[in-house]
């Protein structure tokens, strides 16, 4: 192992511009990856950052109102589900949110829970009986237009033709306004930044007269954990380069997939060792030499230049993960035994070896 660590440090040292990515690991692994990237003078990104970047983009451009899942479970009486894939990243979330009716709040307790599913898929996933769902047919590409129409109707503005009939739009706006504590649920992966911004604007507008919040749905790959950790460590959410000696953020320039496919990055350090997530070979694996920090037994078509077998975060060792139902970090004790080291140990060892080798 020590030899592999030294060889990796040497390989990174010879790299012009490495990218540290994947980041499907626990918080300790993510933090170790940040440190390694800083020492290596590379760029850092998460394999699924594109699935949450529409949220990041909208949040920092215009702000948002956001709710915790548990509060929505207890309080939301009217729910606007946005897009056919709203629950795709977390299929168990409806069970958590809607198994019972609201039980908190004078205006919401006992009144039942209703949902409008804007752009519902033809095969609506099974939802708990405690929620009444009305489907609103809308082509996926028309969802943001529909949100804009609803927002206009809410404000009493005129609006043109769109994916929904005007009367339907007015009725939805009125229904939303009638919520005691409403919530819009959406998957950032299924929208672009402007779409999320439109939805955020609608939620802000609804709060002029009633209470309404929103809930983005994340997958389990720890992309949001990586956003949070890089933000407190560097000031920026992922897609940050250390090549100039300080954190240099650019959401387009330092997107890992782009760096690899354009050849700007000449080496990738890929971390994928998280229980319950897909550890498949990245699609760009053949285009750049890869140092893989993955769970035991992963087999790639394009063999990594150097591979480390590590334990699975979330199962084989104590750790911390971001949990989408909690909306924050949770401690996760080990539930299985594995002699392999955690990804964080390997990444820290490489960073230490690289740091020692670096010229003063």
């Amino acid at each position, binding site marked *: 192992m020590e030899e592999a660590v030294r060889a990796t440090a040497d390989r990174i040292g010879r790299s012009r511009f490495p990218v540290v990515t994947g980041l499907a690991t626990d918080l300790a692994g993510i933090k170790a990856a940040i440190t390694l990237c800083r020492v290596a003078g590379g760029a850092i990104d998460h394999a699924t950052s594109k699935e949450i970047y529409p949220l990041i983009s909208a949040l920092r451009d*215009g702000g948002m*109102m956001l709710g915790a899942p*548990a509060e929505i479970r207890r309080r939301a009486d009217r729910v606007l589900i946005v897009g056919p894939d709203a629950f795709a990243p977390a299929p168990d979330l409806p069970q958590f949110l809607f198994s019972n009716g609201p039980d908190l709040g*004078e*205006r919401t307790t006992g009144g039942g829970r209703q949902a409008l599913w804007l752009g519902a898929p033809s095969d609506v996933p099974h939802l708990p009986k405690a929620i009444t769902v009305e489907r609103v047919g809308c082509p996926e590409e028309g969802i943001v237009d529909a949100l804009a129409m609803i927002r206009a109707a809410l404000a009493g503005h005129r609006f043109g033709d769109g994916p929904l009939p005007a009367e339907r739009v007015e009725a939805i706006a009125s229904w939303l306004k009638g919520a005691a504590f409403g919530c819009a649920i959406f998957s950032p992966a299924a929208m672009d930044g402007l779409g999320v911004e439109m939805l955020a604007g609608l939620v802000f507008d609804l709060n002029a007269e009633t*209470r309404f919040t929103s809930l983005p749905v994340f997958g389990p790959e720890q992309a949001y954990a990586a956003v949070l950790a890089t933000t407190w460590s560097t000031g920026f959410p992922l897609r940050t380069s250390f090549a100039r000696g300080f954190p240099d953020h650019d959401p387009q320039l330092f997107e890992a997939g782009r760096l690899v496919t354009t050849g700007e990055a000449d080496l990738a350090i890929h971390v994928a060792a998280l229980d319950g997530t897909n550890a498949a070979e990245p699609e760009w694996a053949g285009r750049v030499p890869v140092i893989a920090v993955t769970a035991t037994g992963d087999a790639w078509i394009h063999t990594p230049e150097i591979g480390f077998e590590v334990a699975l975060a979330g199962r084989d060792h104590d750790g911390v993960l971001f949990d989408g*139902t909690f909306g924050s970090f949770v*401690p996760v004790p080990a539930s299985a035994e594995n002699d392999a080291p955690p990804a964080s140990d390997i990444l820290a060892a490489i960073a230490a070896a690289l740091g020692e080798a670096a010229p003063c």
Partner: protein
Amino acid sequence: MLMRLKDGHIVDPANGCDVVADLFIEDGHIVDPPADGRAPGEIIDCKGLIVMAGAIDIHSHIAGGHVNTARLLLPEFHRAFQSRPGATALSKVGWTTEETGLRYAEMGFTTVVEPAMAPSSALHAHLELADIPIIDKATLVVLGNDDFLMGMIRDGESENAIADYVAWTVSASRALGVKCINAGGSAAFKENVRQFGFDDEVPDYGVSSRKIVKTLQTAVTGLGIAHPLHVHCNNLGVPGDSAAAAEATIAAAEGLPLHLAHLQFYGYGAEGKRRFSSEGQRLAELVNATEEITVDIGQVMFGQTVTVSADELRQFAGRAQASPRKSVIFDHEANGGGVVPMDYKQSSYFNALQWAIGLELFLLIKDPSRVFFTTDHPNGAPFTAYPDIFALLMDRGVRQRWLEALPKSVLEMTILPEITREYTLKEIATMTRAAPARLLGTADRGHLGKGAIADIAAYRPGDDKAAMFGRAAYVFKDGTLVVQDGQVVNRVAGRTLTLRPEADKAMAKRLETYFDERYGLPARWFEVPDYAIGRDDPFKVVPCRR
């Protein structure tokens, strides 16, 4: 190794010490001069320097979900730091965990309290705190808008049962004390209530803000938690109503200790043609007359910053003044909160009067052991503005120069020009060292007596007090030299101070059932285990007084 700090002017009001003398350090602590004449392994020449204990900040939002959301919302802050060092107000924000530790240490601060940790994001807060280098940290856990507590009060549960709940929460979240933020106000806002005062009742519970504060005050006092209940009053920032809320809360202390946070934000009357006036003098007189009350100020300084608060109702209302015009509002369990950027302008009548009100309070509250030095970072200003505030307190000539730059309409509404008081070094050391340590119940710091941890700051005195306090000549953390001539020279790791009050086991069982049945969450997610922090020995337990 024995170390001797030689010939420094020691200002240590906790031990009644204001003399030129030597100070000896060994094994991270302050020790008596060696009786056997043993030679120190190292001598630091402190001749001409002012030597104080490391400073303690009791109220600074340095970690947690809301703080991190502010970073996320405002990448432009950090960009300013990178591209224009030294040239902008934002250049010194200290925006990352790393920068936070370094910038505090450079000013001689060695302990900082994050005052608003939600139970549901306690682990997140501690994870960030663990990444802040050099300084020791602590947190106050937020209660007072939570369903469980309000339900207990509504149902008339016993003081013991409520104390058990508070003890469990403090212990699980690894806090050093309890804070109450607009008690009941966030819960009421979720019911679409937009104005909430001290005697208003939270819908669905029939429990008033006053009742929540009094209940928590009783629990905190009864548990022997040294730090009094830390109260963020109702109606923050609302002209007239804010001062009334502070006045009512002070009156409600009723002989038991109570700490009011960032009093400046409540010092607003509704007089004058702009319906915005100073209540600074009146609130200062109330504090002077009420011995059980302590306050911190939350001084406003001019420039771009961001407000970060678990007062969701207030933050939602405040988003109308957001600059830049974007904000994030959270509907979380219990308090929720919000992040609203703010640009305090010297040319603004309102902002300039806020600045003056903060200084009125600082200067008119007579006892420096009952008024604490804060900007409510980053709400009034980034903590990196502290050196300028020291100068404003210690030098009326500096105040005069600042006053001359304000809109003339402000000068008619503040008595600040008439105040001649200048803080002495002893008063500064009391306010930022001795008194905070007493308030927090951390007897191992805030002074330079035998046995104290060797957290020490030495300053080079001069007429320019901002320069003096902005760049410490030497700072020692646990006896290790960490800052020299205003530059960090050693990046050690501090720890987080916590209490571990014991709750009845039946309460733990009851909460397990409650979190599972009501929220669908395991109670252990609200607990912060050592292993999760990812550091050896991350916590230092401070005993309760009982």
